[in-house]
């Protein structure tokens, strides 16, 4: 049997994995530069749904993206769902858009020239409130006690995307 430290590391890594996510947020093979008439203003990739069911995009409180060790300015990010794009900070106000379980969720990153050919390391941190819970009340009444909606879940993922 391995040492206690080695075994604790294994156990903690398994315990730390979210058991409600049925998918891996950074969807493999989806990253590409957007080329318009030979010009490139941005690149895009897809994230898979963040629950065992579809979610309201208003429950996404933040998306932080780091590419090749450099954090992408929030003002250069947009999230697209059902054909509509939103700035990250604005997503919480859009309670009309339901991101279906198998609908594409697209993150667009504005960057002149896009990404260079080859491998790029991506890290993403998404903060998300629960869509539903046991806490209840009328409007704001009793909301202070609804702990499941006050502390967003932190979802992290990393991968290498290859630009052909």
């Amino acid at each position, binding site marked *: 049997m391995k040492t206690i430290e080695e075994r604790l590391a294994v156990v903690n890594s*398994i315990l730390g994995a979210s058991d409600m996510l049925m998918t891996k947020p950074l969807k493999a093979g989806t990253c590409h530069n957007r080329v318009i008439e030979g010009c490139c203003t941005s690149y895009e990739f897809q994230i898979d749904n963040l629950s065992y069911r579809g979610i309201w995009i208003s*429950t996404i409180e933040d998306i932080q993206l780091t590419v090749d060790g450099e954090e992408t300015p929030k003002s250069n990010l947009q999230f697209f769902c059902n054909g509509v794009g939103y700035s990250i900070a604005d997503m919480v106000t859009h309670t009309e858009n339901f991101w279906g*379980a198998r609908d594409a969720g697209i993150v667009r990153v504005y960057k002149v020239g896009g990404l260079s050919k080859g491998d790029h390391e991506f890290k993403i941190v998404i903060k998300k409130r629960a869509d539903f819970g046991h806490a209840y009340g009328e409007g704001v009444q009793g909301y202070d006690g609804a702990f499941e909606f006050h502390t967003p879940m932190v979802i992290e993922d990393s991968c290498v995307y290859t630009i052909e």
Partner: protein
Amino acid sequence: MGKVKHSITLYGFGEPYMRGEYTFEDVLQKAKRLNADGIEIVAPQMVPGHPNPSEDWIAYFKDCCQKFELDPVCYSVYIDSGKHKGRFLNFDERFAETINEMEVAKKLGCKIVRSQDALLPTTMEKLLPYVEELGLHLAIELHGPWSPSTPVFQEYYELFERKNSDAIGVVPDFSAFCSGAPETVLNAFPDDCCHKDILMKINKLYASTEIPEEDLVKMILAEGGDEVDVLLCKKRIFSIPRDSHMGAIYYRTQPDYEGFRNMMRHAKYVHGKFFYVNEDLECQGIDYPKYVQIMKEVGFNGYIASEYEGNHFDNTISDEVQIARHMQMLEKLW
């Protein structure tokens, strides 16, 4: 198929469906192959365009049910209290959104609409004439970590007694009636990272005795276990806090059998939640023999949904084999 009316909640196939490995028709085909009589669909999981699916999809769903000869038993909907940052849904939103969901359920041919306790009894009372108009049964799921004695369910019972209507009720889910963890609880952990023999013994003791947790921890150490086993025990075998997040399983050595019996007076549908059924058709941690006995005694004749959630513990186990075993277990016990 047999003595029990079997429903399969398609949620049990949710993980491969979400990953795009199963199409919707694959999922229905699997339910049919397992000899289900009917199905339950989790609306925000498998209904494209939810909460307002197209008429084309509705027609497709009905064609599929006809093709596979599956009764669309239950439409599962939610009260998405987290939708608006800084507030719950208000009464008017819960009321109108539930009517919308019920109208979709009606179009799909589902007879039961399963909602959540955050709907609240006052909203359900105002919805009652609309449920009756649509000829549906609107039911609140009792899910772990809640139990029959949780205050909001007492308020629901008061409403059911006062209205005495078949149109409203509850869906008991066995996550609210677990005594302990399934035998697969440690499957995700490699054998050489803990003392599984000791932990599985503790698992059985935790589910069947009132030995305090601190004494069970001492027992682990006395039998040769160490801090890794204690950590695993606290995280996976001992129950989560009673006020934990929705959907968590709260283990009770003595689940509320009488609460289950009383609840069955208002139940037309039961969520046969399970995490693992072994080759001997036993389901450790959920006392199916006792619950089936109670259901028989109260004359329950509704559907029992086989609701497989074992993928949380081990996603290498065949969902189809598990659902088949669960249905066989119910037939054997009934």
